[in-house]
Structures are given as C-alpha cells and as structure tokens.
C-alpha cells in the first residue's frame, strides 16, 4: 500500500466517509481501486450499469436459469472461520448449488456505515474475491452505498447469483417421498455457535470456527454420483430443524431423525449446554441436507464423504412410509420420540 496514492476522501483515520457513496470522485476511486481492482485484477471494464452475458453460452450448460439473493448482516464482521464477505459469496453460491445450479455470476451490493475502516473493507473484499475464485464464479456487477454513522452496523452485503441447471436435475423442497433417505455433510451449529462466541457479550472464551464454505463443488460431486437427488437445501438460519420442518411441510411427508447420528462438535455441544440451546436450531453456513431415494443413499454418502467438505457426512434420518405429513420426529438414544418443530423467534439462552 505504501507509496500508493491514498484513496480520495480517506482521511488520517483511514475511514470511509459519506463521500464514498456520493456518486462522485471519492466513490469512483473506492469502487475502482477496492472493488473492481480486487474482483477484476486483470483490468477494469467500463463501468456499465449492468453486466451482460451471451445467452447462447448458457444454453450449453443447461435448460434453466436459477436466480437467488441473500442479505448478510453478521456481527462481528470478521469471525473465526470467515467474515461477512466470505459468507456473502458462500451463502449465495450455496443457494444456487442446492438447487442443482452451476453458479455463473454474482452481484454484490454493499451498504457501508460511515466510519468503517478502509483496511477492514479491503480485507473483506479480498476475502470475497478469494471465495469467488474458489467457487469459480465472477462478481460481475455491484453497488455501493454509504450511510451515516449509526444507520447501519458496519457493513451489510447483499449478493445475488445466477446459475444454470442441467436438464436432468429436478430438485425441489417439495420433492421428498416416503422411504427417501436424508443426509447431511457434517456437524451442526458451528456457524451459530461461532458467532455467539465471537460476539463476546456472553463472555464465553472459546474459538469455534464457522463452517462457512461454498458447497457448489460438493453439490456437483453429489449430483454427479446421484443426478436423481430429490431435494437439497443448505441449513442456514433456523438450523437443521428449520430445513427439516420446511421439507416435511413442502413435501407433505413425515420425517424421522436419528439423534445419535447427528454430528455435533464437542465445543458446540459445550456452548449449547452452558446456554441451554439446541444445536438442531443453530445456524450453519456450510451444511447441506440432501434427500435421495433409498437405493441411492449409499452412493450419495460415498460421494459426499469423498469430498473435503463432506468427510463427516452422515445419514441422519429418513422419510417415513407413513405418519402425519408435515411432522418431523426425533428418535433419541433412549428410543424416545419427540417432535421437532419449526424454530420460533430468536434462539434465546435458557438460563435461570
């Protein structure tokens, strides 16, 4: 950085000001020298209002376009295992991937609080670029707004993704059928526990790494092995409980889960014990739930386990042959059965 001319409008404190969202020189300098330079190190394209793609090139890869968006608002912005930038890329890549889409491009909208340190923004943008490169998906268009101090919490990023789906993939949250087997690619609640601890207000001293990861490659490997995957979803907010209850409801089926099969890391279990929380409801950012026909279960498990992001993959339950549609039942180690209900409200520690 030394020797380089400072970015317009950045003062001695090294912070973003409202000028960086004002549509003028400071904004252009920030966009060109931070965003464009990081996302497109090979050279600056003219800054059009839109990115453009040849439709013919898409058709070679599939018959449907997938389109998805997510906003990212995590506090703290940087945490063990990731940061908001990595999250923003992975989250949208994953929403594409779990629908069977091959990610083609991302857009990124930044809402920045006046006063954010430029170096912090650079780190986050660099992390986005790295993750996008890992997912082989370019960030092709974007937007920057700066709001007055106190009008946003540091930085929010909204990413939108487009992807192309192969004609033979037919994945839907409504696709689960009785007898199907349910798999997950690894441990529950790492992201939720990591953020809870990183925030610091509960004064818990432990470094839990978020599981934040792009799942496109794992999803592709799974679909390679089992193109007939019926349903797939990443288990983010609301945790595994959220995904399974939605799946049961949308597919009008009853789901059974084997508690003993659920992978949970010991520190995450520890945090849950201390705060009276349930890892079933904690957020993940690198976990997908897949539903396959029983005859494909072994192939699916094998394909997931062969992937670095699926080494702890497990069969965690199945779609019941009968049972009240829309219900999820957890069978515990004692043979007890309890309902898993949709999460409600914030997950508040149960203490006193």
């Amino acid at each position, binding site marked *: 950085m030394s020797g380089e001319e400072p970015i317009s409008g950045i003062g001695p404190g090294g912070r973003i000001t409202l000028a960086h969202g004002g549509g003028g020189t400071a904004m252009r300098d920030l966009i060109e020298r931070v965003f464009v330079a990081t996302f497109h190190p090979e050279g600056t394209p003219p800054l059009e209002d839109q990115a453009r793609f040849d439709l013919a090139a898409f058709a070679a890869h599939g018959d449907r376009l997938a389109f998805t968006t997510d906003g990212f608002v995590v506090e703290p912005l940087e945490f063990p295992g990731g940061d908001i930038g990595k999250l923003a890329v992975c989250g949208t890549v994953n929403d594409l991937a779990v629908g069977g889409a091959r990610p083609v491009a991302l857009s990124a909208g930044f809402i920045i609080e006046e006063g954010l340190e430029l170096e912090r923004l650079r780190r986050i943008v660099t992390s986005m670029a790295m993750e996008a490169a890992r997912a082989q998906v370019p960030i092709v268009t974007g937007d920057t707004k700066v709001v007055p101090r106190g009008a946003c919490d540091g930085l929010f990023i909204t990413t939108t993704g487009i992807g192309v789906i192969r004609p033979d993939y037919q994945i839907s949250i409504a696709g689960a059928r009785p007898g199907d*087997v349910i798999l997950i690619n690894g441990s529950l609640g790492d992201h939720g526990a990591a953020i809870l*601890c990183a925030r610091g207000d*509960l*004064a*818990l*001293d*432990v470094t839990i790494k978020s599981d934040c990861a792009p799942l496109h490659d794992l999803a592709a490997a799974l679909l390679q092995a089992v193109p007939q995957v019926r349903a797939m979803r990443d288990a983010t907010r609301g945790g595994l409980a959220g995904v399974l209850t939605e799946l049961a409801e949308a597919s009008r089926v*009853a*789901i*059974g889960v*084997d508690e*003993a*099969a659920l992978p949970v890391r*010991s*520190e995450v*279990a*520890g*945090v849950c*014990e*201390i705060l*009276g929380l349930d890892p079933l409801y904690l957020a993940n950012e690198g976990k997908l739930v897949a539903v396959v026909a029983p005859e494909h279960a072994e192939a699916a498990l094998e394909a997931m386990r062969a992937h670095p992001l699926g080494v702890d993959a497990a*069969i965690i*339950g*199945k779609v*019941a*042959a*009968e*049972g*009240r549609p829309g*219900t999820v*039942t957890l*069978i515990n*180690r*004692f*043979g007890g*059965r309890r309902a898993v209900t949709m999460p409600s409200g914030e997950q508040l520690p*149960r*203490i*006193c």
Partner: protein
Amino acid sequence: MCLGIPGRISAILDEANSLVEVDVAGVKRSVDAVCVAEVDVPLSDLIGTWVLIHVGFAMSRIDEAEALETLRILAEIGELDGELAAMRDSQEARNSHEAMEIQG
C-alpha cells in the same frame, strides 16, 4: 429453572474478587467462586476442582466419589434381572434408522 453445568476450574483470574476461569468442554468463562472457596485457603487450591456453575457463579463443588457411587447404583439396577439383554436388543433396533416409522 436453574440451568447448571459442570465445569473444571482452570485458572485463577482475580484472587481478591474470587474470580476464576472455568472450562466447560473447552469453552472458558470467568465465574465467581466465592461460594465454593474456603476461608483462609488460597483460591489456587481450587484449580482442577469440578464445580457446578449457575449464571456465572460456581455454586457447588462436585463430589466425584458421590458421582461414582450414583453410577455404581445405576449399574447395579436390574443386574439381577434376566430380561436385560432382551431389552437392549430391542433398544438397538429402535435406534437404527431402518426401523424409523412415525405414527401420526
């Protein structure tokens, strides 16, 4: 009510204010140890002690001998009973996902 959790005292943070660090499955937190401290015994004697923690306070020392005794009693329950093995089998069957069907 009264969520409590066992933890091991892993360090002394502030002798004067009887603040110690406890370790719960690798998660550490500062807790007040005044209820488990003994008069005229330095806090450092507590290191390694298991305590029951409630809302940031160590409220009781965990008595390891009593814990073992409880487990011993548990282990003995029904040992005289021949039905045990059969029950175990049925339990294992219930736990495997092959058998997981839900009644509405």
